[in-house]
């Protein structure tokens, strides 16, 4: 009698277990499948420009076909701009003491780059120049940096490189290259972390996690 009951119970559990694994409604849909099965969202009732009321936006063509994104303008915030302010009339009196000779250039080797590589040699320069001498606006430094750093530029254009301003909602406002990288000494120095994980405390006999 007992054996019969045990076998019945086992049979029920086994059949329940085998049938429970298969979920006919959801199956095992991956996220990628789900994304492509869902209609694309082209707009949301949120905007990144709400977070950036003070910024002037400069349009940049995107790799996403006809889409474009923005960077925030720099020229309205630069103090020594345009260059012609000083360099057209000669270098005489200036309000500020940040002279250009204080700039240390540690970017590629001296064989590859000098100041003129990006800034050109003409004293009347109002911006930057490309390697072939074409003028580049200070608000579009990405065109200058992309000449050598084309892989990063491609990533930056798509959004895999760099930081975003104003949140995730469209329109996309990206940080320009110089927003993170000092163009004269672009490499980031080592530094101490902002905080430490709880594992450090645990090791040293602190509070248990």
């Amino acid at each position, binding site marked *: 009698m007992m054996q019969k009951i045990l076998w019945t119970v086992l049979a029920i559990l086994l059949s329940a277990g085998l049938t429970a694994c298969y979920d006919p409604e959801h199956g095992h849909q991956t996220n990628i499948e789900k994304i492509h099965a869902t209609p694309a969202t082209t707009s949301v009732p949120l905007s990144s420009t709400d977070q950036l009321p003070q910024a002037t936006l400069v349009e940049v063509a995107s790799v996403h076909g006809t889409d474009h994104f923005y960077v925030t303008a720099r020229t309205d915030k630069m103090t020594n701009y345009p260059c012609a302010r000083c360099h057209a009339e000669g270098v005489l009196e200036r309000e500020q003491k940040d002279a250009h000779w204080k700039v240390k250039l540690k970017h590629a080797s001296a064989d590859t780059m000098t100041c003129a590589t990006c800034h050109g040699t003409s004293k009347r320069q109002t911006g930057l120049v490309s390697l072939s001498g074409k003028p580049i606006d200070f608000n579009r430094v990405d065109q200058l940096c992309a000449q050598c750093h084309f892989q990063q530029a491609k990533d930056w254009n798509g959004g*895999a490189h760099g930081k975003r301003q104003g949140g995730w909602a*469209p329109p996309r406002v990206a940080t320009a290259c110089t927003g993170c990288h000092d163009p004269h000494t672009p490499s980031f120095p080592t530094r101490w972390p902002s*905080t430490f994980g709880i594992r450090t405390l645990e090791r040293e006999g602190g509070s248990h996690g």
Partner: protein
Amino acid sequence: MAEHDKKHPCNDSACRRGGSGGAGGCSGSMGHKPMNRRAALKSMIKGAAVTAGVACSHTSVLASDKDKETRKLEFENYFKKNYRLMTDEERRQTVERLERLARLKDGINLNIKTTDPVDGVLFGYAFNIGKCDGYMDCIKACVEENNQDRESRMQYIKIFEKGKGDMRFESAEAGFYHEVPAEGKLYMGVQCFQCENPPCTKVCPVGATWKEKDGIVVVDYDWCIGCRYCQAACPYFGRRFNWNTPVVPKDEVNTNQHYLGNRIRNKGSMEKCTFCISRSRDGKNPACVDACPNGARIFGNLLDPNSEIRFVLANKKVFRLKEELDTEPKFWYFMD
């Protein structure tokens, strides 16, 4: 009496007699109290006394108005529904009650939101291992944004330091504290991955955790009973438990809160990363994404074909942790 004997395991003679009532030898051992007139009366009187006490505190001439109101609000708060079952009006009342309680008890002015998910949005996250340098700015920003307990140093994010050529987590170090990035090391962060097929929500015995329409897995902190089953079910250690009452210094409290997000939790409640639900539902990036100086963190709407996260998924060689478990995390890793 015979029936009682058959069911009762301890068979203690005093217990069988029922004479000693609830204070007898066996009452606590299996959680089974021998029910007889004396024991029933005892528990009823106890219950009546508690109710009378509560009623008295409302009408007492000695308790201040502030105390009375606090206790009234706490009483109402205790009997509120699961967030999913509340109407919009009830939700509004709930957060107003919580804001008022914070004002009375701690003197803090909070703004607790109940923002609903935005239509057409499914949040996704990408982490660039090539860019992370172990600064932990993300952890600092997360702790401040989410009002995490300072006493137990709760952190949703963990940054692992791994030796180049060895990606195992077993040999990784999460407790590093030296100048970063260190020679020969790479850094990788983990947090709740907001799975699309989350194991944690399936095991909750009370329905205190669920996945919202925009993909964020949330916890109703007051509904949670603290059994930690979800913590056991999560393969990624995404969940945290409050062993003590969370302590946040008053001047560090982030007063912009969401009911399902960064409002201050209670002792015994589970919590986890919510992709900063109070920020992301307002169009902002989570605190960790904005804090990273290297741009190693990418966040956005998976259903927007022009978003950065979609670009990463389409153009970078991405992977996720423990993919074979079919949890479908919405947090991808890549290197460039």
